[in-house]
């Protein structure tokens, strides 16, 4: 790799932008939820304040090296996933990796969080880990099917090419099979960003935030940042795969927010599944729809 000043600047800029927008997305989430519940809700930049406050805690504890390393690794992996996405007119590193790599990178942060949570030794955290992994097991099949449908339809793994093809032939969701895939992906998306009805992982009222329970101060701040970056990356991923990508950041932003709003609406209506219900659900309808989608695209 040649050292490329422009690329470095782009990366830094994109990181700042994505983190900021990710926080804003989290704010939108809270705000929209509040509005749906007829509340005023916090200011839209509230997550930034929260993160700053957490970072500004004067005390910090640790349960060992891995406890600290987990969140750092998670944030690192989220950043990595982000940088391998073609974000509007910024290609960044996306020519170096393709759909499968990104799909994997988007899951890696989970492992970081799990590592940290497990090393804290708190049983609630462990329960959270268990639920997180089981959710992942449950959702991975329909998720995979949706991705397969996309790849089979476009015949390429390169995200850049997928976007380009959509620019030419219209958005993916205009294709019936991919519309089905999109429905599947949207259901899975709910679990990916940890919203109801699949917020089984954190389940605040049951297992006190699950994996995050033992985190406070700077580690929690890192986790919040990670969540912001991850949220940005995942919405962008959705937009790239199904909504035709974007030619500039604004278009991308609009699409991301659209995706986000669907998720928020769904989340504010449904109560939480138990974990075995979630597994059974994912292996029933989304899988069936996913199978139809992939068979249509063979």
């Amino acid at each position, binding site marked *: *790799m040649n050292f490329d000043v422009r690329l470095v600047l782009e990366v830094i800029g994109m990181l700042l932008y994505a983190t900021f927008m990710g926080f804003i997305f989290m704010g939108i989430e809270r705000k929209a939820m509040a509005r749906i519940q007829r509340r005023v809700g916090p200011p839209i930049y509230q997550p930034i304040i929260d993160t700053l406050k957490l970072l500004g805690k*004067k005390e*910090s*504890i640790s*349960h*060992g090296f*891995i406890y*600290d390393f987990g969140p*750092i*690794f*998670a*944030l*690192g*992996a*989220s*950043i*990595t996933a982000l940088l*391998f996405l073609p974000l509007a007119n910024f290609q960044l590193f996306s020519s*170096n990796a*393709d759909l499968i*790599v990104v799909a*994997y990178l988007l899951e890696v942060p989970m*492992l970081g969080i799990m590592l940290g949570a*497990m*090393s804290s*030794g*708190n*049983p609630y955290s*462990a329960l959270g*880990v*268990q*639920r997180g*992994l*089981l959710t*992942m*097991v449950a*959702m*991975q*099949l329909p*998720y*995979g*099917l949706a991705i*397969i449908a996309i790849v089979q339809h476009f015949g390429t*793994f*390169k995200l850049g090419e997928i976007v380009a093809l959509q620019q030419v032939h219209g958005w993916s969701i205009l294709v019936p099979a991919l519309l089905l895939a999109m429905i599947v992906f949207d259901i899975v998306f709910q679990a990916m960003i940890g919203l109801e009805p699949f917020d089984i992982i954190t389940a605040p009222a049951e297992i006190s935030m699950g994996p995050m*329970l*033992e985190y406070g*101060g*700077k580690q929690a*701040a*890192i986790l919040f*940042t*990670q969540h912001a970056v991850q949220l940005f990356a995942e919405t962008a991923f959705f937009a790239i795969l199904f909504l035709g990508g974007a030619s500039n950041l604004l278009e991308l932003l609009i699409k991301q927010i659209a995706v986000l709003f669907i998720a928020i609406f769904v989340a504010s209506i449904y109560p939480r599944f*138990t*974990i*075995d219900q979630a*597994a059974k659900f994912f292996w029933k309808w989304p899988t069936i729809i996913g*199978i139809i989608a992939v068979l249509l*695209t*063979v």
Partner: protein
Amino acid sequence: MINEVPIILFVPIVAGILAWVLDVKGVRELIGLAGAVIPVAYLIKVYPTVADGKSITYALTLGSFNMSFTLNTMTWYFAIIGAVLGLTMALGMVSTAKSGYNWLFALMSFTAVLGVFTAQDFVSFFLFWELMTFASFMMVLKYNRHASLKYFILSVIGAYAMLLGIALVYARTGALDFATISQVFAKDAQLTGLSGMGYHATLTFSRTDMILLFTFFLTAFGVKAGAFPLHVWAPDAYSETDQSYTTFFSGVLSKAGVYGIFYVLLMMMGAKLYFSLGTFHGHPLFLYIIAWIGAITVVVASFLAVLQEDLRKLLAYSSVGQVGYILLAIGTGTALGFSGALFHVLSHAIFKGLFWLVTAAVILRTGKTRFEDFGGLAEKMPITFAMGLVAVLSLAGIPPMAGFASKWLIYEAAIQAHMPLVAGAIFLGSALAFAYVVRFLYSLWFGQRPSDLDDVKEAPAPLLVGMGILGILNIVFGIAPGLVVEYINKLFRKPVITGNYYKMITPNGTYNALSVTLVLIAGIVIAGLLYVYGARARKVPVTDTYQSGNPVTEEYNLSIRRNFYRPLAEALDFWLKYSWDRFYERLGQLSEDFADVLRKSVYNGNVQSYSWYLAIVLLILALWGVL
């Protein structure tokens, strides 16, 4: 010049016999280690020759069978994997093996596996195959009779199926060496293709023959590879033996099955099978079957791995599942798929070998195997833990690791081959893999440490060296997958996957391991800056956690040690009612009962009935028309 092949082949077994005969502590370890190092050294020595596409052949005649062993591009690849794993096994066994018995049979299986990989004719192939089965069986027999018998029965059924296949090939072609048989098959495939187009030709192998051959060989290799539904031996056998040996057992012996499928079913009779058995939705039917077997193996074994309560069982099921990936990749039927399979052979060997070495170290130091007895070992065995973490990352397919590179190829191959459901199985399988490695991490290394593990020490040095070798390989091949891919390209004599050392480019995808690594490191650095800026962390014990405000002491059990994935079991309770293991057990029981009935009714002790048998035979003779 002395031919290297016999040295590589026979040094281990000779060393094993010496170690067994001398059986003095210290001496046997030295001999055994030497027996494992020499093949590796010689294999590395012949690398330039092999990489040039030349081959080294060693032939001998035994029992008027002409046997030959060749190191060429293909066999060297498998042989070096076997040899490196064998070396790490030997390093592990320096610490874990308590008797010459273990050395004898471990090194015997070493020789046998190398023999299977290099054999160029069916007799030596079968001979070493049987030897391999036998040696590994003896390793299990010492620890558990039931598990070993299950293993042996299934293996022997497989081996005999292979023998039938070999005999059938011999009956039709009159040859036993691979070269001639390959030629016959190739020619026959051409003729079959022609006769499909209305051209009449006398075929050496009929369609029935090919179905039989396919069944026989698939059974044989499927058993060894642990393919569903013949996988039931694997969990028991892998767990009930010296864990250092399992490094080799699960890392390499299962690959013999893969090698068989690859070499015999694909390279030797692939074209013929394709023409004889036809296609299904555009895929060669026989490959389609292999792919589905692989997919089902992945899913079933991974689910079972997630639900295990025993460390060794978990890893054993995981091995079965990972071999499923390889089968699946072979089943895609594309050059990309084969490359993925070959790469995964390597990466599974190194990460699962590493896993088993870690397990060996843990079991050696703690003497426990069940998850409920472990916890918090990361502080006590930090290096072992680091190696375990490398293995976990590699198995779970975290990008800059060898495991990801090969899995990525398999994903690409499966999706590009338009086998969507099979590819879906990989997605599910990889999520499950994630789930079970986390179980491994959580129960062993994290959480509260049971008080009886307080004086656990770090693993002994030889084991650490072995782990180090495999750990470094995992990282090196992860960051530079091109090293392997380049070699695999040589096998196909064309660049299937292009790119450089760090970058793999398939027709439709790219993966640059180095850039992923660098970006990941950069990301971690950025995150680390945040961490450094925050308040200095204070170390607190595990009891200082939120337990709803309750005060706890170390005497409380704060870890979820049992039934970690209980909800999954509940979600799957319908499927868990059925078990192939139980099915086979029942079948075995039934046949034993049948044997009893048979023996008691036939040999009933009454000489008059015996006389009746004679009379009946006379009657049959008369009816037969000969009397």
